[in-house]
């Protein structure tokens, strides 16, 4: 597909979508959102680019293969569970640290892992499908 309108709009909309995805990821702890929906929206931004500029160009922008994104996400998610073992608690217990007013914990890391797995999986499937067309 070669459409000037889609290309121009995609240039602005895709970064916004990705930002919104990150917002969804961080807001998901207390409010609607989370790693899964964030990952879907993030992959939507790349898919928009793939429609506008073609698959090969998009893959250049993503730089690494979606398979690696899945693997890194999985490792993050497992790692977030393993951290609590190091603190002597059962697997997947939340471990929290407070930096002044900011509270960070392992559930956040887990959600980021989910985000990456969803992003990688969706991209892997849909980019392959677009190639087939």
């Amino acid at each position: 597909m070669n459409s000037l309108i889609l290309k121009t709009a995609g240039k602005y909309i895709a970064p916004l979508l990705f930002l919104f995805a990150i917002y969804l990821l961080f807001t998901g702890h207390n409010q609607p959102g989370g790693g899964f929906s964030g990952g879907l929206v993030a992959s939507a931004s790349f898919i928009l680019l793939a429609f506008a500029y073609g698959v090969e160009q998009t893959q250049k922008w993503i730089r690494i293969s979606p398979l690696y994104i899945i693997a890194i996400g999985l490792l993050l998610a497992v790692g977030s569970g393993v951290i609590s073992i190091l603190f002597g608690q059962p697997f997947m217990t939340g471990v929290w640290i407070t930096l002044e007013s900011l509270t960070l914990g392992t559930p956040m890391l887990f959600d980021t892992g989910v985000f990456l797995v969803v992003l990688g999986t969706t991209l892997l499937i849909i980019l392959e499908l677009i190639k087939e067309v």
Partner: protein
Amino acid sequence: MKTLVIFPIIIPLLTASFCLVSYKTPRLQWLFTWFGNLSYFIVALIFLQATYQGNYYSIQIGNWEAPFGITIVIDLFSSIMLLITSILVFCSFLYSLTMSSKEEFRSGYPSLIFFLMMGVSGAFTTGDLFNLYVWFEVMLMSSFVLMAFGGEQQQLEGSIKYVILNLISSAIFLASTGILYGMVGTVNLADLSIKFSIIEYNYPKLIVSSLLLIAFGIKAGLFPLYFWLPASYHTPPPGISALFSGLLTKVGMYSIIRTFTLFYKEVDIPIQNTLLIIAGMTMLIGVLGAVSQNEIRRILSFHIISQIGYMLMGLALWSVMGIAGAVYFIVHNIVAKSNLFFISGIINKKTGRYHIKSQGNLYQESPILSICFLCSALSLAGLPPLSGFVGKLTLIIAGIHSKAYITVFISIVVSFLTLFSMTKIWIYTFWGTPHYKKEASSESDKNLFFAYSAIIILALLTASLGIFGEIFLNISEKSAQELLQPLTYIEKIMEY
């Protein structure tokens, strides 16, 4: 020790992820694979040793207390299953070292196997009915992909049947979990075990347990629900179908034994009779199907069904000896049946076909292969001193003690028929004149070194399971005693 409980799940998951990271470099994948296998094996061994002393190990994921959070429990039965899983996966990797192409490794074969292993060990260690459902799904997702691995037409046909039947079974399982939750308000197995016996009315109990029996029965391949199994198990590459035949149906069987011993603390006559009838029919129909087939993998697939009948018979007898026989039989069957599938792959490599009537004279060509085949096949039929003999003898004696004469009679007849169909393979494949032209591309034994070492390991294991039968039977008897006294299990988990 308590921290280690989660390791049978984490190790395959980490290994699979690392294999994904390095999917372009098969060498690095191998390194991770062996490391994962080895550490899993060590953990399983530690647990077998520790649970044999009568200990239970459990943790609460995320530190949520027992009836509400997810419990992971390892008792003797679980650790037996974990150990045998690790041995089988190890052999399957050893086998695929020479039997699979580099292409398969690039497309993520090792990580898929490890995801499957994670699902299986999750199912073996969970103490929560809904979590069991989740592990089934994990296991099925990777098995769906493995089933269609390679993407030939025949494989896709087999996978469609496999996927649809398994989805139906998952739906029924989920429904029955929901009904149970609605009835007693818990899904923790230990808690369910207490509350299930408090329910006053008999019918809801019967409905739930029969739904569970149907759901697990589809996965295990029990009598009226087995038809997907021979239609799909012969289609994937032999390394994968060996793993499937060894692990997947046994997970269904494991779940039946685990849930039924927990839900019914004493013998329930209608349930016992139903199980006995199903067991007898499963044995008989499976072996009759096998006798009528001429394709080696189809014969073996039908035999899976008939062997599942023996395990169910052990549970249905509801005595220490019967369940010990069932546990022993599961282990024996995983070893013997997977080895036969492995061997069928090598036969195909040598002759280029699976149809037994177009093979022949393999005995002269490779005596080691023939001896390994004979060892596993006769063990499957139940000839002493191999492992099948010990298992069948225990089950038959237990059956006579429980006065289940008809099922015992069927099981003896089925043994003869099994012997008949194994002899059929032997005569056509290993004796006689070759009915195929030796192609230049057919592999020599040297190239198959690792595949041979895998089948030799399994054949030796079958023999030693039989020869040192007393030790292994002792372990399974201990786990049967534990299974028949669910109160200890409940106490350990709920920590009253």
